[in-house]
């Protein structure tokens, strides 16, 4: 193979790679769904069965000291609207969307989770000091997108068990 042929081949491959790269916003949902194939959930029947039924949302204390937070992103709310987690414990976040593509970000941190309908987005968050974080959707999702905000409260570890008693660590009513 001479240099010319190799160059043509390399250029062709590069261009073929560039086309999907410029169209990422169109193919991200199917692509990520493919990559997260094992985490498929039906976005229309989250409330009927499975992991994201109503009483399973919110913070769950694990035996090893970490917590699991399950959330649903829906036009135009994060559910539960307020999340309570203990400081210093690893937070395993599991979130899925009931309709459009959303993105969960925590103001003042680098955490950003892309939320797609049909798949569960998983990530681990660490909040070391107690405080309050405003969360917001950073992926345009419709007419009420800019009001799609919620809250995450990090409380000291020793206070968490007492606060966690009611409604799976939700702090909506407080």
């Amino acid at each position: 193979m001479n240099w010319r042929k190799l160059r043509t081949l390399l250029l062709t491959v590069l261009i073929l790679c560039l086309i999907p790269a410029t169209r990422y916003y169109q193919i991200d949902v199917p692509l990520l769904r493919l990559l997260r194939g094992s985490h498929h959930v039906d976005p229309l029947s989250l409330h009927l069965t499975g992991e994201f039924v109503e009483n399973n949302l919110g913070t769950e204390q694990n035996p090893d000291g970490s917590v699991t937070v399950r959330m649903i992103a829906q036009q135009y709310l994060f559910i539960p609207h307020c999340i309570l987690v203990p400081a210093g414990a690893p937070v395993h976040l599991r979130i899925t969307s009931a309709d459009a593509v959303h993105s969960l970000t925590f103001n003042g941190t680098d955490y950003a989770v892309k939320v797609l309908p049909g798949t569960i987005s998983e990530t681990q968050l660490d909040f070391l000091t107690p405080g309050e974080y405003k969360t917001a959707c950073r992926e345009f999702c419709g007419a009420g997108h800019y009001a799609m905000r919620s809250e995450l409260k990090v409380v000291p570890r020793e206070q968490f068990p007492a606060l966690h008693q009611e409604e799976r660590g939700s702090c909506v009513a407080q």
Partner: protein
Amino acid sequence: MLRNKLFQRTEKSSWLRPTTLALTFLVGVALAGVAATSLLEAGDSPPDRVPSNVAWTPETIAAASAGDAFRGMLLARRCDHCHGAEGFSSVGYTPNLAGMDKLALWKQLEDFRARKRLSRTMGPIAESLSSRDVADVVAYYAKLPVFQDSQDNRIFPQNPPEANHAGVASHLVSFGDGERGIPPCQACHGPVAYRPGVPSLATQNADYVLNQLESFANRSRTNDINEPMRTIAALLSEDERHALAEYYGSGLGLQPGSAK
């Protein structure tokens, strides 16, 4: 002597043979295991709380919108007494049904039937309907005009909202409150956008809207899928709930932007 007797007994009775004993032991262990796991499961996880049996799959939407409006008209005569002959109620606590979205009304009737939304009046009535009846009644009410009311039965439009309420409500309807995470009402309840199963509120009774907002807030009504309305109603203040009820009850929802 004694030893011998014992030995003989074990030899004679099949119950005490080693193989039988082992089998019994195994079966016992297995049964105990099953019982223990089922007990543990029952103790560990409470039953799933399902807000509504309805999921907006294409099949559900097709079934909900395939009603026969003429048959629905005949069936709906038993609704006249409370919901009005033309779908406009003369009682504030009873919702107006004229022009009600098919999917919204269908979901509520299905929830009444399944006891997911509790009502002493509507529960028994909805249970007396078959799923075909529900689709037909829904098709009829969806066809009723919103703007005509020859019998002048309706109490809509009602009193205009108080001066300070009008601005509060119109801001919540158009923009929501980003600081508290309250989305604008019109993003789901129209006229900007609708979601499947979400009613338009433009011609609803003020008392009914207020009553429902309060039931969502104190969680006596729990049939909203993924709890959007329970969350939002709890975030609204008492005053804002009244303001929103007055806004929709006075027909301002028909001309958004007219209250400033």
